[in-house]
């Protein structure tokens, strides 16, 4: 690891000022950043530790009914906050399906939003990677890319965004509160992430030195609380990133879907909101046919970026299932295996 300076600011303003220097990086819990530094993937020359900043660790209900989550709130703390998980159960479920208990206890929500891709070539300094080193090429193309993107990728980069949390936030129209030298601004999460295009090293709309101070979930998102689920498919039952995941939320009135929300994980360099699938569902009754139609719509533009065509078929099935789970209603209690296809009771075997 390179020698670096460690700074522990006491206010957001101080942090932003410190980050004005080129080569600076904000440090949350470090569960992602420190790994990348140890692997020589990034080598900032100053770390600005945010974890001692006051006021960024709160979960608050705002007067308009929305909820504001400070950037330093721990992933586990948010998932286990009763008011929060009641209002946004799919977000809690997504959080609890991510990483491991130890990591969730440490990791901050700001860090979760900003975690880097798990593309193995990005993590390997000996490989060409346009994201790590603009213009160097992309070794994932033509390489081991069974986990790579099927939507929104470019010839420059086929990586995916790994977060589960962000997928559920995206379905529910979260906004990100950002502070920088020029003051505070709010950006909808759907506009926060950038697709790779020709500039895969630019991942979000954050300007240099800007800091995430909070995440907001709108009051109206709570209208979906009765019908929202997160579903995450992967080989290992826990402690693995999604091959494909989906957050689905429905408003159902008198047997008809009045509004649908759908976002996908593991498929693109951003949590992928599917307006087409949502539109396809509005006004239909919540049936398997409707869900399959939405699934087709969600992946209409999908194409393999390598040996990952299977993810398109898998993705469709994940969407149809997630919608069916949402339609069935949010479970009373968080399943023991959140977001897992094995979440529900594994009861007695029926011979058929």
């Amino acid at each position, binding site marked *: 690891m390179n020698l670096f300076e460690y700074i522990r600011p006491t206010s957001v303003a101080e942090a932003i000022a410190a980050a004005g220097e080129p080569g600076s990086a904000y440090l949350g819990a470090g569960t992602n950043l420190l790994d990348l530094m140890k692997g020589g993937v990034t080598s900032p020359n100053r770390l600005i530790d945010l974890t001692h900043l006051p006021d960024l660790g709160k979960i608050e209900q705002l007067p308009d009914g929305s909820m504001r989550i400070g950037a330093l709130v721990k992933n586990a703390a948010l998932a286990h906050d009763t008011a929060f998980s009641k209002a946004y159960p799919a977000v809690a479920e997504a959080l609890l399906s991510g990483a491991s208990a130890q990591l969730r206890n440490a990791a901050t929500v700001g860090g979760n939003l900003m975690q880097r891709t798990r593309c193995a070539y990005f993590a390997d300094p000996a490989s060409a990677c346009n994201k790590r080193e603009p213009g160097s090429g992309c070794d994932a193309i033509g390489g081991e890319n069974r986990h790579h993107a099927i939507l929104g990728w470019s010839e420059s980069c086929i990586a995916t965004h790994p977060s589960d949390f962000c997928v559920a936030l995206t379905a529910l129209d979260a906004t990100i509160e950002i502070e920088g030298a020029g003051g505070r601004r709010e950006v909808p999460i759907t506009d926060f992430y950038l697709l790779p295009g020709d500039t895969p090293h630019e991942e979000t709309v954050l300007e240099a030195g800007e800091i995430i101070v909070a995440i907001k979930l709108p009051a109206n998102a709570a209208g979906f609380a009765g019908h929202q689920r997160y579903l995450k498919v992967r080989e290992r039952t*826990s402690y693995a990133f999604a091959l494909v995941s989906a957050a689905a939320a429905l408003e159902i009135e008198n047997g008809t879907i009045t509004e649908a929300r759908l976002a996908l994980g593991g498929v693109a360099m951003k949590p992928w909101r599917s307006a087409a699938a949502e539109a396809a569902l509005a006004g239909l009754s919540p049936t398997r046919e409707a869900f399959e139609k939405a699934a087709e719509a969600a992946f209409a533009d999908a194409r393999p970026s390598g040996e990952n065509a*299977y993810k398109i078929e898998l993705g469709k099935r994940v969407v149809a299932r997630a919608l069916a789970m949402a339609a069935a209603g949010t479970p009373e209690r968080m399943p023991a295996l959140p977001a897992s296809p094995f979440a529900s009771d594994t009861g007695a075997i029926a011979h058929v």
Partner: protein
Amino acid sequence: MSDTISLPGGNARFGSNSGQPMTRRDGVLKVTGAATFAADNHPDGMLYAVTANATISRGRVTSLNVEAAKAHPGVVEVITPANRPPLAITPEAKPYPFAFNIEVLQDDTVRYAGQEIAMVVAETLEAATEGARLLAPTYEAETARVGFDDVDSFDPDAVGVGAPPVAEKGDIDAGLAKAVNRISASYETPAQYHNAMEPHAMVAQWDGDRVTLDTPNQALVMSTGAFGAWFGIPPENVTIRSPFLGGGFGSKAIVFGGQVLTVLAAKMLGRPVKYALRRDQMYGPVGHRGATRQAFRMGMDAEGKLTALEHLTTSTTSTFEDFIEPASNASHDLYASPALSSRHKAARLDIGTPGPMRAPGEASGSAALESAIDEAALAAGLDPLEFRLRNYAETAPMSDKPYSAKALRECYAQGAEKFGWSKRPMQPRQMKDDAGRLVGWGMGTALFPAPMFQAKAKATLRADGSALVETAGADMGQGAWTALHQIAADGLGLDIAQVEFHSGHSGLPDGGIAGGSGHTATAGSALHAAGKDAIAKLTELAVNDEASPLFGAGNIGVTARDGRLHRADDPSRSESYGEILARAGVSELGGEGQGARDPSSAEEYAMFSHGAVFAEVKVDPELCQIRVSRLVGAFAAGRIINPRLAASQLYGGMIWGIGFALLEEAVHDRRSGRIMNANLAEYHVPVNADVPPMDVILVDEDDRYVNALGIKGVGEIGITGTVGAIANAIWHATGVRVRKFPIGIEALLAETSAH
């Protein structure tokens, strides 16, 4: 002292020591962090070594920026092929047992990605790490060959550790010709890595021409000879301390280059040096389970009896050393067939040399064989258990030797009963759970050799009637500190609390190798014999002493029990060890023992542990995610010294089987040859959520030939049987036969699209 552990309370004893489910003696030390592992040692003045590892798979290092590394604050020395001090032997010499051709910076060639190409030594770990990065090597790279299809195969001279590559009996083609049903099928297993929790580490400190090494090691005394050879000093000048290993699985039995370089660096710089591998550095220089392709042909007569069984394995090895996964040998000793052929080919790739990894040969071989047997049973129209019973071998099929003991029928029966196997429908896709998931049941037979090596031990009776026993054993987490202690106490007729046990130090009598599932049998036999020897000497004193109640009992004999010698014909006449010694004026009485197999039994009998594993899996019918939901294993492995520890070993093996079947695979980039998932986030082993409720049944087995104590081994057998059982259960659930491990979503998805 690092080579002894005081005994925690709570080990209540009921009767003898062996057979009791005592808790681990080292358990408290481990859960409180008091156990000292190799890398926990920090002698005064210690320096830190970090290696730079090659990022190409084949070619040459053309430059290293040694100046930049040396200029980094804290860096003390950079060792490269250009300045590496001489060693007493070359890597090709291999003068000691289990010697591999290893990398000790002998030249600038790169033979695999991850190979050590330089070592940086610094005052801190951070400085050494940054120094290694600053070396910024450049290379002349040649095309990497990392896949089976990249090279031609060849006929190896030997497989595994010196085993013949071909064994044949009868006429396969004739057997197939007369068969009523036949199958042929090919399976593939990937490269897998040991991934012990504790990374390999070495702390080396010299004192004149003597060196002390703190390093996790599965064969302490043998390794003193190895390190002695590299440095031109006698084995007795090398001390290895290895009280605990955080897992070894075969990867800590073989000396690798980084260890030799650490010892060399300590000598060169005149200070202690520590080298601990990073997780990613464990993917290359320290062995792995080589990939295999395994092709079978089987024929069955009208009754479902095998008429021919052919097993041809192609295993990968490195370009410069042979370790050929002996997978076909799994077919030698299990199913009866008049025609039997097991052969091996090998393929040289630009990879680190494979090595023994928990159940080497047996694990990969069993995974494929048990899958093929399932296919054969289906072809024969028989239940897989019935098929196995019809092909039950009464004598070892390849050698025709009788088994020393074989309670496999009981394993089948007890496992099947516990699992409920009789309710299994023959056809696949017949069962669902109430959530609509596909449910499947599969089984596999477990088989593992019961070898013994050579070991020595000492026992010393003390004036107060207590005793000290010593052997340089190795506890990798399997429980040697406990099980060996139990056996030793029984040899002496003492309660375990009266016996002090020293182990894990090369200065003690040679405890042999902790490998091949033979450590308890071998070191245990030595310890038991040492105790008996001491007791025999004590008996001599007593029966010849007129003042002893045992006087004159020489012909009648005495038994040693609870710290007293009793007349065999009149147990009420007894005397304590302390009294006998005190009267004889002897303050300490020593005994010695050896553990080794009786050569005539070894010649006469086939010696194996057996088992039967039954698996239930659930598969989501659309999403194709798989989860094992039940595992039952029944194992017959001779005398069980400690049922708690034995069951733990079997659970661990079965869990490893889950990983083998569903998760484990090193993924090489096909162009650079680098392993792209060389970390525990991306190289998947099972986590708790993957592990279902498991039952282990320890089936009684009295084996009178393996050794005097009747001990076999349980360390590795749990993987065998389990992998096939899971693969077969997946077929039974889905109707899809996946012949490439690990079995995952993608393979099933392709076959289930048409719904």
